[in-house]
Every structure is written in structure tokens, then in C-alpha cells.
């Protein structure tokens, strides 16, 4: 009996692979330009499932879409009351946490993907944060990782969108994810997972490019590459504006 069960478990992915379903993906845009009046952006992700054989009738198709911004180490600090005031005390460095992460699913997350597949593909928000070592005096490491998720969720940077993917006829799927205005530049990895029986049967990966353009790009580059010139330019503009407004006022009062 035990052997049979093991065999069945082994057979499931093989059977799933046997149906050979593939993702054909479309994006409303594959670049996001951060301009001076950038106010967030809505990305429409749509696609179809390409298959040679008819879909298995007993296992419904589920889809999970994720968009992941560039991952960077983050220092999380916790306040404690010391001498009557609230002071940062414990600090923990999270080795890597994405600057943006959105997960959209076609159903309740835990019902459509198994824990082991979530772990393997780093799908859910907590699984996208990597934490290697923590100093020994911090015993509640989890609280720090949770704080990252909580703070970034409140800022719209982490989004957990259950039931946000619509599937039509077991073939077409679409969802839209709102990118907030406080985006970080970088390559946003976009992944689509097809699932049957809580197992990933196919996935597809592409990249959305988020870049500053025009004046934003110019100012940002100048500030990093020529900080002295950038600083002097800032001052020159400041002084000119100060003098200009003063002169304008003088003319205005004389008139």
C-alpha cells in the first residue's frame, strides 16, 4: 500500500507533464517609464494555455502570477522603550527582500498550491524574503521578517491578491496588477505558474523593465556620477531662483 502511494505521488507530475501545457503570455507593457509625473502604473497580464491534448476534466486549472522587483538587503530596526523614550534597539539585516512583490492567484492560495511547490518556486510573499543568519541575541527573528511584509504591504509594495486572476474556459487567463508610484528602478521579474492538483505544471518567466527616463534619468545619473557638478547645479538653481523671485518682486512693486 505504501509503495503504491509513493508510486502514485511519483506519477502525478509525470502525468501532468504528459499533458504538456504551456503558457503563452501577453503584457500590456513590458517597460515602465518613470517620468516626472509618474503616478503608478497598472500592468495587465494576460495569456493563454497552449496544449496538444484536451485538459484533464477532473483537475481544474489554476494560475498564479507574480511580479517581483529587484531584491536588496534590508536592515530592520525595532524600537523599545528606554529611559522613557522609544529608541531603535535591535537591528536585523534581511539578506534579500524584493523592493516590490505582488502575487495574484485564481483561487485561495493554500488550496491551489502545495507548500512544497511554494517553497521550491518561492511564490508566496514570506518565501520571497531570504534570511540567512541572525545574531544570537535576537530570538524572535520571525517578527522582523513579518515587519518587512507588514510595512511594505501598507505602502502598497507587497500585494497579496487572491482570486484576482480570471480564467476562462480553462485556457485564457488575465489579471491586472497596480504598480505604486514609489517604485524602485530595476528589472521586475514576472512569473506565471500553471497549477493542477496543487502542483506547478508549467511556468513562464519574463521581465518588465522599470526605468527612469528623461529628466529623471539625467538628474539621477548626474547625482551619482558627477556629485560635485550636481551639487553645484543644485546651488546655482537655488540661488538663481532666490535672486529671480526677489528681482521679480521688486519689478512687481515698482509697477
Amino acid at each position, binding site marked *: 500500500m505504501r509503495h503504491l502511494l509513493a508510486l502514485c505521488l511519483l506519477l502525478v507530475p509525470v502525468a501532468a507533464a504528459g499533458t504538456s501545457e504551456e503558457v503563452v503570455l501577453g503584457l500590456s507593457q513590458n517597460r515602465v517609464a518613470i517620468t516626472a509625473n*509618474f503616478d503608478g502604473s497598472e500592468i495587465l497580464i494576460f495569456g493563454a494555455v497552449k496544449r496538444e491534448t484536451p485538459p484533464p476534466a477532473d483537475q481544474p486549472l489554476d494560475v498564479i502570477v507574480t511580479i517581483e522587483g529587484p531584491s536588496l538587503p534590508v536592515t530592520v*530596526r525595532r524600537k523599545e522603550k528606554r529611559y522613557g523614550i522609544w529608541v531603535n534597539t535591535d537591528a536585523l539585516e534581511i539578506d534579500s527582500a524584493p523592493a516590490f512583490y505582488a502575487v495574484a492567484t485564481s483561487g485561495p492560495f493554500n488550496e491551489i498550491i502545495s507548500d512544497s511547490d511554494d517553497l521550491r518556486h518561492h511564490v508566496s510573499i514570506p518565501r520571497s524574503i531570504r534570511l540567512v543568519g541572525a545574531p544570537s541575541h535576537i530570538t524572535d527573528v520571525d517578527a522582523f521578517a513579518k515587519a518587512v511584509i507588514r510595512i511594505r504591504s501598507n505602502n502598497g509594495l507587497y500585494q497579496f491578491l487572491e482570486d484576482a486572476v480570471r480564467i476562462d474556459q480553462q485556457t485564457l487567463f488575465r489579471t491586472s496588477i497596480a504598480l505604486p508610484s514609489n517604485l524602485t528602478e530595476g528589472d521586475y521579474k514576472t512569473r506565471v505558474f500553471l497549477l493542477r492538483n496543487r502542483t506547478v505544471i508549467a511556468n513562464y518567466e519574463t521581465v518588465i523593465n522599470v526605468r527612469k527616463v528623461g529628466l529623471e534619468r539625467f538628474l539621477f545619473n548626474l547625482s551619482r556620477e558627477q556629485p560635485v557638478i550636481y551639487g553645484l547645479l543644485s546651488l546655482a538653481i537655488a540661488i538663481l531662483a532666490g535672486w529671480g523671485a526677489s528681482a521679480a518682486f521688486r519689478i512687481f512693486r515698482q509697477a
Partner: protein
Amino acid sequence: MQIYLPIAEVSVNAFLLLGLGGIVGILSGMFGVGGGFLMTPLLFFIGIPPAVAVATEANQIVASSFSGVLAHLKRKTVDLKMGTVLLIGGLVGAAFGVLLFNYLKSLGQVDLLVKLCYVVFLGVVGGLMFIESFNAIRRARNTQATPVPKRRQRNWVHALPFKMRFRTSGLYISVIPPLLIGLSVGILAAIMGVGGGFIMVPAMIYLLGMPTKVVVGTSLFQIIFVTAFTTMLHATTNYTVDMALAVLLLIGGVIGAQIGTRIGVHMKAEQLRVLLAAMVLAVCAKLALDLLLQPAELYSLGAAGGH
């Protein structure tokens, strides 16, 4: 209209920034303070990262003070000699302040330092000014018939060596106190993103005994150069000066400063000081409450390694 700030990497309403700049600019012109002590906390409040707020505010103060100082130069209410002595101290202080700022940023304690500095300085300065000018107003009301002849007190300041004559202020005093005042103001400029007028103005009046008339113009003169230097230091070590943010704040700020300078001319010095003191105390109380009450979010995120 939303605008995306290239260095702060956040999107904010352009009119909100213009408005903030304008209001703080009016105060700057009225009191001869850079207005940074109000603007920097306001920028934190609308979601600008603290490091960017402090550095950009220094840049913005250059602009708002520039139009102010032009107005004062025209009225000949700037003591250039005193301003230069204050400036020398200020440049040294700013350099030291940026070093301290960057060190504490790496420790994650820079917010606490900034807020504690605000609470202590604003509390002491605001309290002293409030009591002093309140008494002055009462005296002026009660004893109008027999005005007490105002005699400059001779205190410890006058016992120090290296004396110098400051004609515009009508003073003959040691250069050590103005140098030290300049130094501490420079440190504050770098750490708190303030011009430092709120500490320099009272120090010039009460410690150096300068006439109120030249205090505002002279402090603006020093502030321009110290904040310009601070801007350069932050721009080259932290890359945190946001030009777009600065331009928006200063457009509002320079216009406000012009209006404020004109309002200031028509008001009595005591009234000005009571108003300033009340405002200083209000900001102080708000910041003190932030430190004393349990914050809604105990955790905060920062870039790793403090860079």
C-alpha cells in the same frame, strides 16, 4: 498633480510641496530663520526619506535665505564682519556635523539624534524666548510712562580675549563667542537640515547683545553659506540632494520669503519673538510626543549597511 522625485524615489503632489514651501518661506522672511526646523519634520511627515529631507532642505534654505538676505542688504541690516566670523565657525561645524550624521546613520540612530536635538534645542530656546518676550510686552504695557533705559549688560562674553570691533552692530567683543555660535549652528545645519536661525537669532540677541535690527539679516547671511556647504557635502557623500524637490520647495519658498520680510517690517520685535517662540514650542511638543508615546509601528526599514 503628482510629481516623481528622482532622488527620493517617491511621488508626491507638486502643489503640496509648493504650498509647504510658501508657508515656511513666509515664516523665514518674517523671523530670519531658515524655516528648516518646520520644513524638515513636514517632509518626514509626507513620506520623504529623512536623509533626503535633511540634505534637500539645506539646499532649499540657500534659496529662501538668498532672497531674504538681498532684501536685508538693501536695507543695510547685515553686519558683514560679524557674519563672516560666524561663517568661519559654521563651515567647520558643518563638516563635523556631516561626519557625525553619516556615522549615526550607519548605526541606525540618526532619527533619534535628530529628534532629540529638536526637542532639546527647540524646548530650551522656545521657552526662554517666550518668557523673555512675554515679559517685555508686559513691561511695555505697564510702565509706558517711565520707560527703563535699556543698557547693554556686561557679562562673561566681554571678558574674553581676541576682541574685535563690529561697527554695524555697535559692538566691541571677543571673536570666540561668535565663532562658537557659528560652529554649533553649522553642526545643527548638517545634522538637522535646518538653517540654525532658531538658535542663532536668540544667541546673537542674548549672548552677543547684537541689536535686533541686524540680527535677522546677519543670520541669513551666515546661513546661506553654511547650508550651501552642507548641500555640497551631502550631495557628494550621501547623494541625497533631490533637485526636483528643492526646486518645488524653493519656488514656494522664495515668494513666501518676500511676503514674510514685508510683514516682518510692520511688526514689533516683541510680537515677532512671541510668535516665533510659540511656534518653536509647538514643534517641540509634537516631536517630544512622538518620542514618548508608543509608535504605531515599532519596526522600521532602512537600507542595509547604512548606505
